[in-house]
């Protein structure tokens, strides 16, 4: 009984996070097609950033190269779902085993994730052994390698030309399910003994090694696992776009996803979910501003937001804490208090919220 209770207390974080994105998603269609589209992008970003978090957040080693796994997933997923006939016309020189493959989308996503995971495994052979900072930089080289190969491998990717006719299987519902599954999957990994060992190495690499954690092995596992998650997200992203080039998975996306993770806070799953959600709203407002300033405000604003977070709150907005019911309660009470509901302040005097200043901080 106690164990079940402990489990429920633990699992509330992914449940709450999934519920949060679900609520936003369900509200979005009220704002019309444009809002629905934004919700879709937000959901896909949640999947990608949570995937990035499963490596960078849990290991404490930043990666500039995970979007290469995303592109691999997108291309792999597209190549095995485009109808065989269309593929023959589009890519006449495709190797036969790909040319004759056609899968339905849920299975295709998994296969795409598998291909990306395989790529991650190969890359992890040299990369996982590097010291942390060198690993970050090496992953940047990986990004460049993937980009160049995809940009020039005309017979498979059409090179710099767009890959067309990708079935658009990623509906809002699919994206929501994927985001939720990703949250639960990564949460399970985070709480598993593998995740625990990886997090131990994040707090103190030497100490973790001293208690028998094989840091290289744990990082390798995380690389492969995050490669899988991001590969699946990449396949879904490709089947949302319908048309893409290697540029869709290069620097801009690398920056955006890292910015989301940094803003949300890379030390908790909550940060990895909140980041994309907040950035979705921020982007909306910045895009409104772009009607005045012209294009570019979005990127500049996001970069400034990221710098401000790094300077004033370097651990990100969540600072490593996870979303829990208790924190929600504290939040809603302080919200009520701000509106001056004195009875709420009274009932919450026993709550764990530490700030006593609200007593005189309320209006009047």
């Amino acid at each position, binding site marked *: 009984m106690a164990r079940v209770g402990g489990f429920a207390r633990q699992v509330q974080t992914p449940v709450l996070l999934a519920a949060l994105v679900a609520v936003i998603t369900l509200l979005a269609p009220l704002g019309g097609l444009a809002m629905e589209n934004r919700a879709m992008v937000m959901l896909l970003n949640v999947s990608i950033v949570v995937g990035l978090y499963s490596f960078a957040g849990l290991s*404490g*080693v*930043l990666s*500039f190269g995970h979007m290469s796994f995303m592109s691999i997933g997108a291309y792999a997923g597209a190549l095995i779902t485009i109808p065989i006939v269309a593929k023959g016309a589009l890519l006449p020189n495709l190797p036969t085993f790909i040319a004759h493959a056609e899968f339905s989308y849920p299975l295709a996503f998994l296969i795409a994730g598998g291909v990306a995971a395989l790529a991650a495994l190969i*890359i992890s*052979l*040299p*990369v996982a*052994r*590097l*010291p*942390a*900072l*060198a690993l*970050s*930089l*090496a992953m*940047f*080289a*990986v990004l*460049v*390698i993937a980009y*160049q*190969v995809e*940009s*020039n491998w005309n017979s498979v990717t059409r090179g710099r030309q767009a890959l067309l006719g990708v079935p658009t299987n990623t509906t809002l519902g699919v994206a929501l399910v994927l985001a939720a599954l990703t949250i639960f999957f990564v949460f399970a990994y985070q709480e598993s003994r593998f995740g625990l060992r990886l997090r131990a190495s994040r707090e103190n690499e030497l100490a973790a090694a001293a208690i028998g954690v094989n840091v290289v092995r744990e990082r390798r596992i995380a690389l492969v696992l995050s490669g899988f998650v991001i590969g699946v997200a990449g396949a879904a992203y490709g089947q949302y776009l319908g048309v893409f080039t290697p540029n869709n998975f290069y*620097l801009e996306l690398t*920056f955006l996803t*890292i*910015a989301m993770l*940094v803003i949300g806070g890379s030390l908790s799953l909550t940060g990895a979910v909140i980041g994309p959600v907040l950035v979705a709203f921020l982007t909306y407002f910045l895009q409104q501003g772009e009607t005045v*300033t*012209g*294009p*570019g*405000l979005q*990127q*500049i604003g996001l*970069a*400034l937001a*990221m*710098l401000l977070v*790094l*300077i004033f709150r*370097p651990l990100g907005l969540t600072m490593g804490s996870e979303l829990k019911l208790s924190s929600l309660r504290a939040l809603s009470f302080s919200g009520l208090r701000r509106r001056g509901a004195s009875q709420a302040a009274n009932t919450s005097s026993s709550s764990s919220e530490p700030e006593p200043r609200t007593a005189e901080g309320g209006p009047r």
Partner: protein
Amino acid sequence: MTALLQHVVDAIGLASLYALLALPVALIYGIMGLVNFAHGELIMIGAYGLFIFAALSLPLAIFLMIAVVIVAALLMERSAFRPVRGSTPETLLVTSFAVSFLLQNLALMVFGSRPKSIETPGFLNKAVSVGGIQIEGVTILSVVAATVFIGGLVIFMRRTNFGMAMRAAAEDFTMARLVGIRANAVISGTFAISGAMAGVAAFILVVQGGSAFATMGLAPVIIAFVATMMGGLGSFSGALLGAALLGAGTVAFEVVLPTQLRSSREAFVYGGVLVLLLIRPQGLIPSRKERV
């Protein structure tokens, strides 16, 4: 024989340019633990500087451009890196990544996405023939610039008090402050040097590429990263060795690869680097220094 010598000359030219890119990155990492992503944007600023000063005589334009880049480097340090000084290398790195993205997009906003073409004197792209070997003006320029900077830096570091302070700060920053070395002065000085080198690299890259564009800093900064990483982060001589190997490797792949794969040259070079790191994860000249 002539063909081989030609490749050697090409490799030396490329390695010199790469050394000009890698050295300032290694220098700043050595002093403050920052791998500066935005070094590429200093180069970009230099290229746009040449575009703006195009109407002036070339020496004056280059002089002003380098001055602008140095100022930009100092401003960058003051506004973005000083507030996060002392953070983990990861935080510093990601901060410079944000600065890099910010500057790229500012450039896009100001100058647009189409490259601005810049005229440079024709002789720099002309080749002189020495015993059957073609040597381009810009190759000579790269070699001279790299030699002057590396040599100058070595003398500066060995012979001047400021250089001594830089060496001390690179070894133990807190202790250097305890003997009275001003942290801000050393770091600003290092950024000024990196700015000057970025300016020179910008000129060489503009001669080669003929234009300035917002994302032009990316390719050079990756080269700088890979070279310093190969050398073992934090080692100056390692960074130079990395640059040399990278230059040689790039020329070698260009020679060996069939035509249709040449456009993926960098992919092969970096792939080669990853294989190399498989053998030597700590880099070629591992630095034993632990950063705080």
